[in-house]
């Protein structure tokens, strides 16, 4: 996707705000921020952000393209919606954060080892196979994403959780051999593929 990145840089050279408005979900709201700081202060994960939302919005306006798109800040958003509820200007902050994250990933700029980003990808690929999440495989791929040794350690550490999930019938060992799914998984895959094509075409048209 770095071709697209180059194309975007080329097109919006001096105006990152415009680029965000055109390409990021709900990006047109960024300019409405009045820099009050309520969102940043309301975020339960606030401490984990290198740049809280309020700062991200100012950085966008200041044209700090690389700093924003390569940042792992927006990946910290857990969708708790505290900020949206409290923003005096009603900015859809959560959606903008996810929009920025998606956009940076599309352009190949998202930090490679960011756990949320990795998890999202694993989750997505897992779910797309059969149209339902295979909890067992999702857990295993997560545990083993950093190598075999770490995987065993992770699995042991979470043994109790796994057992409880099985007891509550939220996870079944049988999932290992295939697992449950929806009736027409390939239909779903086709649908999503089409949607992705449309989205991509939209982005390309913007370059």
């Amino acid at each position, binding site marked *: 996707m770095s071709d697209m990145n180059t194309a975007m840089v080329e097109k919006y050279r001096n105006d990152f705000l415009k680029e965000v408005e055109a390409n990021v979900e709900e990006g047109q709201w960024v300019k409405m921020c009045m820099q*009050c700081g309520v969102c940043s*202060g309301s975020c339960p994960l606030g401490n984990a952000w290198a740049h809280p939302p309020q700062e991200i919005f100012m950085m966008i306006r200041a044209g700090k393209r690389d700093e924003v798109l390569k940042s792992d800040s927006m990946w910290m958003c857990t969708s708790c919606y505290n900020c949206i509820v409290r923003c005096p200007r009603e900015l859809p902050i959560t959606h903008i954060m996810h929009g920025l994250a998606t956009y940076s990933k599309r352009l190949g700029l998202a930090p490679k080892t960011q756990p949320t980003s990795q998890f999202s990808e694993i989750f997505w690929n897992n779910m797309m196979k059969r149209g339902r999440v295979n909890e067992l495989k999702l857990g295993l791929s997560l545990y083993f994403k950093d190598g075999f040794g770490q995987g065993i350690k992770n699995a042991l550490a979470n043994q109790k959780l796994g057992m409880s999930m099985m007891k509550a019938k939220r996870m079944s060992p049988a999932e290992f051999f295939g697992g449950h799914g929806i009736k027409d998984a390939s239909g779903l895959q086709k649908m999503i593929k089409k949607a992705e094509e449309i989205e991509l075409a939209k982005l390309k048209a913007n370059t």
Partner: protein
Amino acid sequence: MTEVVATNETILVVGGGISGMTAALEAAETGKKVVLVEKRPYLGGRVSQLYKYFPKLCHPTCGQEINQRRAKMNPNLTILTMAEVTGLEGEPGNYTATVKLSPRYVNDNCTACGDCAKVVEAEFDNEYDYGMSKRKGAYLPHVMAHPMQYVLDPRIIGTDDAQKAKDACKYGAIDLDMQEQEINFPCGAVIWATGWQPYDAAKIQPYGYDRFENVVTNVEFERMADPKGPTGGKIVRPSDGKEAKNVAFIQCAGSRDRNHLLHCSRICCMASLKQTHYVVDAYDDAQVTIYYIDIRAIDRFEDFYQTVKAMENVSFVKSKVANIISDKDGNPICRGVDTEGYHRYENPHDLVVLATGMEPSVTKSDFPVDIVINREGFVEPDPANGGVFAAGSASDALDVNRSVQHATGAALKAIQVVNRVACVEG
């Protein structure tokens, strides 16, 4: 029974705050007949509950005294207190007003000696102090009340207290048989000056006004600074009476917020800067923090802001506080992120004052007549309102200076309407 002599050249003024009083006096002093209808038992409205006025830091009682004197001297002015307009019908130059009068149970013989209050036992929340103190069931609303007459709380009527009060009065001023009364009279134009009310701070949940005793509003703080107020003018914490030296002000509490009030209330920046003086004057080792989005010291008051800004023990933090928590000693802790460097802070204070905004005191559905209001709820200067003109803070969030100017304008508009009637009728 109260009777009102009026014609369709009479001007009706609704609301006896500084705006209504000004409009009524200006019109009456040009020779027009004016009826002033006030819901409370006294005139003066919300300014009578302020300790000092910005920008001069003088006492509102001073201006009020002048107005009260003007009112007493003017034969063209009829004042009805404890009265509300419940109906208004007709057209410019020819309206009929319906007014409901609540019984005061005290007549004009009252000399304000206070003997009735001495014998009455029942106590109620004092609305003049926003419920921060108690008053007797027979009471003088405040020391400068106009009219200077006691009031019997309707909740003591039928109890022994009422009889005791009656027996204690040497002047026969207490009349327990007074009834609610409804009167109708004609008028040619109406000035609507019902003013504002503080935005309900409990609705701003993250600030915990309804959970933390040491989080108060700016209108309450005015009462706390007033020597006649609930704390005798001492700036102390409601929870434990401890001196409040480390005081925080949170600006735009409810204003400029699409979840609360859409508008900038315009006076609250100035109110907090003024109240900073109260704290700094009270304690040598005071420490004041003002949390703000931007300071709007309306027009020529910029120097007032600069003076406060230059004070050593006052700091300004550019940030809207995200939330307040309280520690085990009852210290409210302001939490947020500032805009000058994006620093995360958690600052404990003795007391937090919410600079709550102004909203119109009468909502659209409560108007006795069809009225055009704007999206903030204030009365618009719209031709469709006919002979009804807003004055002062019923038209917008205004300070006293602007309210009074606006009220004078409203008086002129009303005079023009009744003059037209006079011309037609010769």
